[in-house]
């Protein structure tokens, strides 16, 4: 927790309403997201109980499992969910765009947009991950055949759950996390996991403070939990009799239909409030302007979606239960790069996030007092344009001479610290600039900061991070278990 964010929490508590910790939106919001509110059966190993799913507030489809302990009904639920999710995914596969690669010498194609799944909380993401895990290895023939859509949906859910691990991806978002990224409440992180309480802080109903709204949201009789876990009291008093009535109806069609309708009614009653909150959350996020680098990250999601769709089309197998040594190392490397780049991009996009780095001594704002835009360094083989500027700041400067700084407004330009002169209450810094000024020996107008300009200078760099080199799986070194066995890891279930 940064001090700036903690201070925002203290302010939220005093003000009785959540305080912004971002000035722009850092997640992509689809024009047509698929909202999914799942419920799981208590005690069972991730057995689905019900879900509300749909792409518009007035278009919620309710899926119910009348007997969650019955395995056939579980997979019938997955097949029904697939009827909603798979056509939604396919709807993004119509149009592709050309993307130049290899410095413009070649092009590749990707879909112009990608699907976005929204669930209430991180537990919802875990639920989808495990639903994917339990479905993607199912067979359409053999001992326990399932509908062909089941393993397919299982792979797609696994794909989304894996994207959700990648920092900066918006393919599958937990609403509580997306909201907490932009607002600080006066309650703890544990309490922020409860979507109704979190929204109570961000957007309290008239006449209530955030704390009062959150306290009210904690009463499961007023505000059902946002899932996937159900309220134990609801289980015991309402759900258990309804499930028993359905089971007791046996072959009596009329009684069974009545019992099913009752189950639908009580489960809808638990899901509908969360459904409303999900769309309120979407509305709140949509009210923020998107950060400048959000679209670039969404391009990454589009690439991933296109790539996986092609993998499925070409008959590729399901994701393995566990990564091999090389795949695990690659994945970790990819996630670390994504985390670094996401942190930098958020700071570049948002002065409020950059303020956290300023407080930590990784950035400072300074005013340009001297500028020599035409300075040429001819000490090398070829003369090169190396303008120098002097800036003055009242903020503490913790970087040493020789360090390389960047500025969000000119991300392609590097500024090397030549020397620092601390004076009373301020610091003068002389910087030598390179990059972002064209190839000639005169800097184009605007490419060199002018006297009087206020600049944010930071050690954070959004420069391209080269990917690490990894051996092929067949060449896994013995230190990492050696090459994997060639026989496919068959799921014994």
């Amino acid at each position, binding site marked *: 927790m940064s001090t700036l964010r903690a201070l925002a929490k203290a302010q939220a508590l005093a003000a009785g309403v959540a305080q912004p910790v971002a000035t722009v939106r850092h997640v992509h919001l689809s024009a047509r997201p698929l909202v999914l509110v799942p419920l799981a059966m208590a005690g069972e190993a991730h057995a689905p109980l019900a879900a509300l799913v749909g792409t518009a507030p007035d278009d919620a489809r309710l899926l119910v499992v009348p007997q969650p302990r019955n395995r056939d009904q579980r997979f019938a639920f997955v097949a029904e969910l697939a009827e909603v999710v798979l056509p939604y995914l396919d709807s993004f596969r119509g149009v592709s765009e050309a993307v130049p690669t290899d410095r413009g010498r070649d092009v590749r194609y990707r879909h112009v947009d990608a699907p976005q799944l929204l669930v209430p909380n991180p537990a919802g993401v875990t639920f989808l991950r495990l639903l994917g895990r*339990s479905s993607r290895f199912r067979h359409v023939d053999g001992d326990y055949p399932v509908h062909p859509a089941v393993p397919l949906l299982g792979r797609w859910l696994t794909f989304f759950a894996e994207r959700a691990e990648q920092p900066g991806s918006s393919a599958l978002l937990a609403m509580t996390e997306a909201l907490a990224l932009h607002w600080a409440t006066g309650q703890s992180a544990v309490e922020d996991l409860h979507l109704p309480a979190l929204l109570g802080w961000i957007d309290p109903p008239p006449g209530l403070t955030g704390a009062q709204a959150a306290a009210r949201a904690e009463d499961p009789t007023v505000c059902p939990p946002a899932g996937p876990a159900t309220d134990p009291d609801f289980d015991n008093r309402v759900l258990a009799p309804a499930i028993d009535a359905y089971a007791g109806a046996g072959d009596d069609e009329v009684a069974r239909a009545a019992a099913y309708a009752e189950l639908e009614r009580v489960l809808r009653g638990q899901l509908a409030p969360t459904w409303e909150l999900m769309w309120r959350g979407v509305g709140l996020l949509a009210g923020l302007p998107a950060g400048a680098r959000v679209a670039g990250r969404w391009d990454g999601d589009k690439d991933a979606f296109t790539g996986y769709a092609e993998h499925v089309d070409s008959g590729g197998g399901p994701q393995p239960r566990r990564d091999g040594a090389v795949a695990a190392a690659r994945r970790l490397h990819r996630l670390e790069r994504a985390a670094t780049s996401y942190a930098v991009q958020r700071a570049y996009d948002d002065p409020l996030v950059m303020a956290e780095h300023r407080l930590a001594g990784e950035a400072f704002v300074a005013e340009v007092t001297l500028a020599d835009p035409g300075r040429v360094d001819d000490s090398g083989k070829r003369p090169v344009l190396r303008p120098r500027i002097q800036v003055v700041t009242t903020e503490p400067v913790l970087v040493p001479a020789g360090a390389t700084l960047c500025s969000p407004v000119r991300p392609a330009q590097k500024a090397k610290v030549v020397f620092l002169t601390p004076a009373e209450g301020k610091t003068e810094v002389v910087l030598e600039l390179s990059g972002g000024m064209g190839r000639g020996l005169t800097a184009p107008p605007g490419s060199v900061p002018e006297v009087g300009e206020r600049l944010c200078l930071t050690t954070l760099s959004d420069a391209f991070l080269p990917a690490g080199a990894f051996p092929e799986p067949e060449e896994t070194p013995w230190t990492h278990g050696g090459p994997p066995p060639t026989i496919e890891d068959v799921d014994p*279930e």
Partner: protein
Amino acid sequence: MTNTAQRLAEIRGDVPPKRHNARTIAALTGNPGCTRRAVLDGAGVDKPRLAERVGFPARFGQSRFAITRGNAFEARVKADGGAELLRLVAERLGVPVPAAASWTDLGGAEDLPDRHERSRAALTAPGDDAALFDHPLLGLAVAGQRVHLEPDLVAARLAGRFHVVEIKSFPVVDGQADPAKVSGAAIQAAVYVLALRELLAEQGRDPELVSHEVVLVCPRDFTNQPVASLVDVRRQLLVLRRQLDRMDRIEDLLARVPAGFTADPTADPATLTAGLSTVEARYAPECLAACELAYFCRQEARERTGAMGRPVREALGGVADVAQVLALAAGERAPEPEQAEAAALLRAAARLRAEALAR
């Protein structure tokens, strides 16, 4: 009745002390610095009722479905005189699977002293043969009182050592389980290890015969097939022992509690609320998952930075009070000497925040 026991009886009210179980003992380790909790639990106060009386009822319901599933899985694992269980545990421990093992069910009888005696006799009887003991009744001293534990667990004696075996119904998918559930099970198992060790030590046997490695038996993946895992509970044992020692010195804690303090749930709610506020609590958000009184304490600690979580308090330079944080940040309050650094940080943070939001 000793002075302390009398004092605790006054605090508890005119009811027998609430019985501890492994779950409540395990919960004691959650917030060791909380005097309020140590005193109330030491006295055996009916905390759920107390919380209800002061207007902040706890929410620790358990779903019928979860209970049914837990019982069904346990029955399955223990079926056939524990043959399957024995194989799982032996294979996991890497010892040869014995051809047979005796199965002693120590549960059932209502009479506590008798059951306790039977458990003691069975578990400390000489002999090294493979044996499984179901539902042993164990005892542990908590705050100077003997607490009986009736675990749904099996103590397995294999290759001359005892292992605590806990059967839990949360799944292990691809070798991974919910970390929160595993750590909860580990600390509960540690309570049993400690109780079993005390039992052996009382009989002059080596307490180290009880292994610090407990066996957790859970459903594998999405099936009902059991899978056994080993969990090392040495760290939990340390924590537990430290907290139990602390509660043994309940006299020291009582010295800090005003005379006449009562948490008797039959008392007037206003008296209870006023009384509770005289006993120091240390609320943290983690309490919500472990202590019945947490909602009351949270309300009380509302204006404290620690109520938003320890990381928040630390990020605010350790300043405890929200109003003070804001006053320091606004420069409206002169910092105490030890707050100088925190105040400078808060002022800088407030300035940067205001600047970024003003754009």
